[in-house]
């Protein structure tokens, strides 16, 4: 299976940006973050002690509709919890994240956003990191489909997702917390639990990995959180390559 690809900081006007491409589901997301910014005119509505996280989602071919509002709300609640909005310079300011769905299947009216969700979350997180927004933890997300025969498929293609009996999105933090879950279809709790365990494995690598250092390195790269880490490491390496050269 071809893994996702991501790159950081290629928009120059934004404080931070990232693009994320998931070949399995076909989605390509471009994210940009401006933070901290002054939010004009609505000081009364802002929380005095914390930064306000705002998320905008732009679909590729149409204007944003009610579905986007819903996804924005979910993303805001996940990212708002992870962003350390009380760090110096952040209270009363805004963290503005814009996510554009550049490529992939169109989302029809009333369709659930489950299929794009992991890609949006990853692009959002990477953009936040790229803008150096302080975060309490990182996370990674995965989409799982349960087929009619009860098999759990990771990152099903849009066609497979439509045929699936149930679809599950999980976001698991770098510390193994369940940050977000969205499931729909028809399923029972055991199926959900199975999917959740699967998601933990996908996002964290196998649990055995944390015993030995060498093992962990390899496992981490295959896992979702490992992928996020690796992307950021690569970026830091290329950012500081001048320093390395001068040594």
């Amino acid at each position, binding site marked *: 299976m071809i893994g996702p690809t991501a790159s950081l900081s290629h928009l120059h006007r934004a404080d931070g940006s990232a693009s994320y491409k998931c070949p399995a589901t076909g989605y390509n997301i471009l994210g940009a973050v401006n933070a901290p910014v002054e939010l004009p005119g609505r000081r*009364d509505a802002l929380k005095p002690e914390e930064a306000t996280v705002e998320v905008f989602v732009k679909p590729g071919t149409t*204007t*944003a*509709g*009610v579905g986007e509002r819903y996804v924005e709300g979910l993303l805001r609640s996940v990212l708002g919890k992870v962003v350390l909005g009380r760090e110096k310079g952040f209270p009363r300011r805004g963290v503005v994240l814009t996510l554009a769905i550049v490529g992939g299947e169109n989302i029809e*009216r*009333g369709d659930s956003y489950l299929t794009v969700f992991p890609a949006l979350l990853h692009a959002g997180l990477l953009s936040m990191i790229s803008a150096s927004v302080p975060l309490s933890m990182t996370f990674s997300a995965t989409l799982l489909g349960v087929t009619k025969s009860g098999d759990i498929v990771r990152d099903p293609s849009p066609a497979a997702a439509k045929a699936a009996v149930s679809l599950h999105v999980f976001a698991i933090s770098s510390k193994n917390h369940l940050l977000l879950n969205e499931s729909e279809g028809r399923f029972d709790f055991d199926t959900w639990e199975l999917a959740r365990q699967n998601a933990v494995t996908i996002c964290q690598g196998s649990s055995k990995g944390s015993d030995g250092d060498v093992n962990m390195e390899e496992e981490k790269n295959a896992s979702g959180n490992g992928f996020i880490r690796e992307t950021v490491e690569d970026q830091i390496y290329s950012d500081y390559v001048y320093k390395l050269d001068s040594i």
Partner: protein
Amino acid sequence: MADRRRINGPPGGTRPPVFASVQQSSTGAADRARRQRQPAELRKIFLKTGLIPTASGSSYLEFEPSASLAAARSNPKSLIPPSSALKLACTVHGPKPLPRSAAFSPNLVLTTHVKYAPFAARKRKGHIRDASERDLGVHLETAIRGAIVAERWPKSGLDITITVIEAEDDRWWGDAPNSHDASWGMMNVLAGCITAASAAIADARIDCLDLVSGGVAALVADDESPSSTGAPRLMLDMDPAEHQSIVSACVVAYMPARDEITELWLKGDSSRAALEKDDERTGHEALVDGAVDAARGANTVLAEAVKESMERSIAQV
């Protein structure tokens, strides 16, 4: 253009169903709704305050269903309702500080807002307020502004929002629109709005000169009207669905303790009216007096509802 803040229906648009029996139009006249009440008899009003606890004041108002509607409900035969009964909810938010951008005002700034639910009328209403809804809002504001002691709250705002869950018909559904036609149902809605808003304002403990209530009267020229001259007769609290031809109608907002009218809205030709022999009044005067009488009737219900609201708040303390 599609509204991107709402969920839209099919892009090609849809049509309301057409009933075969209406097209044949032979059965229509037989089961048309008729007024069962005396000319001066009002419909019962159900009015309750404080149903919406998140608001400073609230009220819910419902008119008694007409005889034909009640019959249709208890023994349903046709999918076409013979008439409808007004149902509306009113909330009052405030007094609250005006937004910082607003200009200084030494008085309470009143904002009224009337909106029909999409399913309120026989024809589906849009989500955005149309002209008639805005019109109702303006009429309501005038009616209420005369009753509130506005200088008690400088630099404050008061929002009155009314959601009409079920509106009144403008005419009997089977009748074709004719020259006498106007949106008569709107006048009933306005009367209900005024009474409900007054109850909600009292529930919010805003100082008022008096309780203001709405009343409607109409001059009706029905075929079967017994008056020899053929002049239209005065009917209090008319239900447009029960009459063939309404010549003119009047709605007032009336404060009984001060004998004052804060809002008067008269439509149609009120020059002729069949009155008692020794009645010297012109048609116009009779019409306004009739509306005031209707408002007095509504006021008794209103006073009862406000009393109830008071008792509830005392019980809480």
